[in-house]
């Protein structure tokens, strides 16, 4: 329950304005972005609808419209606007949407955990192959092999990782749809879906790290390649004063 600081009336946690005096309510300890935006806890959401809700609530909360209001209302407007912006940002992106769902369903955070350090079992084979290839490419770069050839090898090494990521996106999509259809399912069934979602997110973080490693090697190779070219091209003429 929230208590209106203006008239003292009680209001449900997900209300934004006092049902009695219609003043903006102070933001309590809110934690559920879905409820805040008036959405059910579902993962496949219509981006247009989300954006409309964000715009409509922005028009209700924004500090621009509380310039002449009491200090309490101005603070409430600032807090609700900030929270709305956080909520919109989190729900707009499908991955952070899943992460938020996991958090409010009480699962341990999937974000900054040992998940990034430990190789997920399902990826062992790919990671092993990639690391071996990356080591060789690096050595090749340092010993001055043709960057073009190494870049081709790198692109080839990337393919299975890209494929894994595509597969993950598909799985996340499927699991999201399953979660959305499980409204009346048992607690165990729901929990199984959430656990699976969490696993995919952890693996996804790992895959993204791998892709980042590949990108950085890619740009090292390219900068070496362009240095190579620059040395060959004629010097551009200086400015004539």
């Amino acid at each position, binding site marked *: 329950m929230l208590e209106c600081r203006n008239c003292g009336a009680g209001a449900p946690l997900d209300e934004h304005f006092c049902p009695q005096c219609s003043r903006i309510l102070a933001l309590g300890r809110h934690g559920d972005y879905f409820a805040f935006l008036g959405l059910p806890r579902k993962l496949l959401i219509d981006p247009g609808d989300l954006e409309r809700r964000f*715009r409509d609530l922005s*028009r209700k909360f924004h500090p*621009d419209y509380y310039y*002449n209001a009491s200090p309490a209302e101005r603070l409430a407007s600032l807090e609700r*606007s900030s929270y709305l912006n956080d909520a919109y940002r989190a729900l707009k992106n499908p991955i952070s949407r899943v992460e938020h769902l996991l958090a409010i369903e009480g699962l341990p955070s999937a974000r900054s955990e040992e998940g990034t350090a430990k190789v997920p079992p399902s990826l062992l084979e790919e990671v092993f192959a990639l690391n071996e290839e990356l080591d060789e490419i690096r050595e090749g770069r340092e010993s001055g092999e043709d960057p073009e050839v190494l870049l081709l090898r790198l692109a080839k090494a990337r393919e299975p990782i890209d494929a894994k990521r595509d597969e993950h996106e598909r799985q996340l999509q499927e699991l999201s749809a399953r979660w959305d259809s499980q409204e009346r399912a048992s607690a165990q069934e729901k929990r199984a879906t959430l656990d699976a979602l969490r696993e995919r997110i952890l693996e996804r973080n790992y895959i993204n790290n791998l892709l980042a490693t590949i990108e950085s090697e890619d740009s090292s190779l390219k900068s070496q390649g362009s240095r190579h070219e620059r040395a060959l091209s004629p010097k551009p003429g200086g*400015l004539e004063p």
Partner: protein
Amino acid sequence: MSKVVGIDLGTTNSLVGYVDDGRPVVIRDDSGDALVPSVVSVGNDGTIYVGREAQRRLLTAPSRSVYSVKRFMGRGIEDVENEAALLPFGVSGEPGGVVRIGVAEQEFTPPEISAFILRELKHRAEEYFRQRGEFDFEVDRAVITVPAYFNDAQRTATRDAGRLAGLEVLRIINEPTAASLAYGLDKRNRGTIAVYDLGGGTFDISILKVEDGVFQVLSTNGDTHLGGDDIDRLLVEQVLSEIAGPKEQDAATVEAIRRAVIHAKWDLSDGDEAEIRIEPSPTVHAGYRRRITRAEFEDVIRPLVDRTLEPCRQALADAALQPSDLDEVVLVGGSTRIPLVRRVVEELFGRRPHSELNPDEVVALGAAVQADILVSGRREMLLLDVTPLSLGIETMGGVVSKIILRNSTIPASGREMFTSGVDNQTGVDIHVLQGERELAADCRSLAHLHLGGIPPMPAGLPRIEVRFQIDANGILSVGARELRTGIEQIIEVKPSYGLTDQEVERMLIESFEHAEADFEARLLIDTRNDAESVIHATEKVLRRPDFAAIAAEQLEPGERERIDAAIAELKAVIAGPDRSVIQEKTHALNHATQHLAEVTMNRTVREALAGRNVKDV
């Protein structure tokens, strides 16, 4: 109800606007000029000159005059050292502290100099409302614009300048967003637009989505040290290298060269060739003349213009958009008049940019609209801007932990939990930073906070939640509490590159003490302006093509001579310090031209009516 205005506090020029009957307008002086040069000059008697008058004094008293102060707002000496060499005024300061600007024998902080400009704009607006016969013409509240890429220290410095000028700063808004408000007025359409804003000292790119009157910024990027000033400096350096010898590098000559290259730059916006021309002077005996073609000019400035491209690409990437996703590209800022800039923008975005509204005025118009929204409670339009830079705190090993990411819609908040490292620790130091780099040393230091009043507990037991709040101005505030005990923590903020509240208070008191002297100075300037407009009007009549005919037919013998003498006498005293003498001579000139004025007016009326039927009149 007193008036609210929107102010564009620019690097080169500043403007003030307001909403008149639902329509934003900029306020012009009697000669129709809306731009107040952002130049401040201190007279020998301590008089403060602002605007055109101060700009004139840049040539005659360069060491007592300051321009482009915006580049120093919220900055430290280490940021600006390399550009200080060619400036006529001194720039100093402790490393890690506020820049001090030395003018004559005095030192000012950048917010104090900016406050002089804001006071001039406030005065201009009040004078305008008074002349319109408004009962309550006082202007004490304003929306002030800043570059979108301004960091927290630069925004806070701007707000402090407003306070020092006696203005309640209703809101700090970003220049490109303000421009989009002005553009969005006529066409209530929807779409994605990019605003490319290259001004006198700063560059911004903002990408917005407009729908249902909500102007939502998706991303912003820029460079707060890139603009027309840098172009001018390249050209000045070029000229200096051609006029050999160190004695030419005195402040007055550099200023004369700067003026000359600026004129050439303007000419090159329309023509293919221009002349940089410096009149002979004690230091440049023979004077200096040089033709510059547009191609040469473009070769010189190309690297600067190219520096705007990377921020544009980054902004597009942050908004997850391709150039082809944009519906419109809008140009803002005087430097977008340069044809090369237009070409580069067109190439990058693949479409011809818009520039229907005057690029110098559009930001002030938008600021006026925002001021009106705030006080009127009108809800048709809403600006949702973003914070340009990530906000974080320094953690172990000098690494930055980001708390609010760049391009987060504001207001925005973030939390971070802290605990104690040793038993019975009662305080924690927190270093707040802004920027995108990983290491604290590479980011902008905003403030050092000391968190005190933690109840004595074993190490690791306190759970202190520190809350960072960025308000709708893009300005940060910090709050904290210990969650186990619920005790609110005491936070002291030591701004790294800003003024403390006490300093602002002290400056406010000083400015009240100076108010009387300022008032006298103001009267003197008004008197001079009156005198100039009388001279100007008279000389205009004397130059009329039909003046010879008028003189022959209708003037008395000796009348022309009396007028010439009165002009000469007024010109002789106009720059002097005595207001009553200037008034007297102005009056005398008015008297001497009274008959001429009647004669020419009758003639003009007769000509206007000639050949028309009485019924049409």
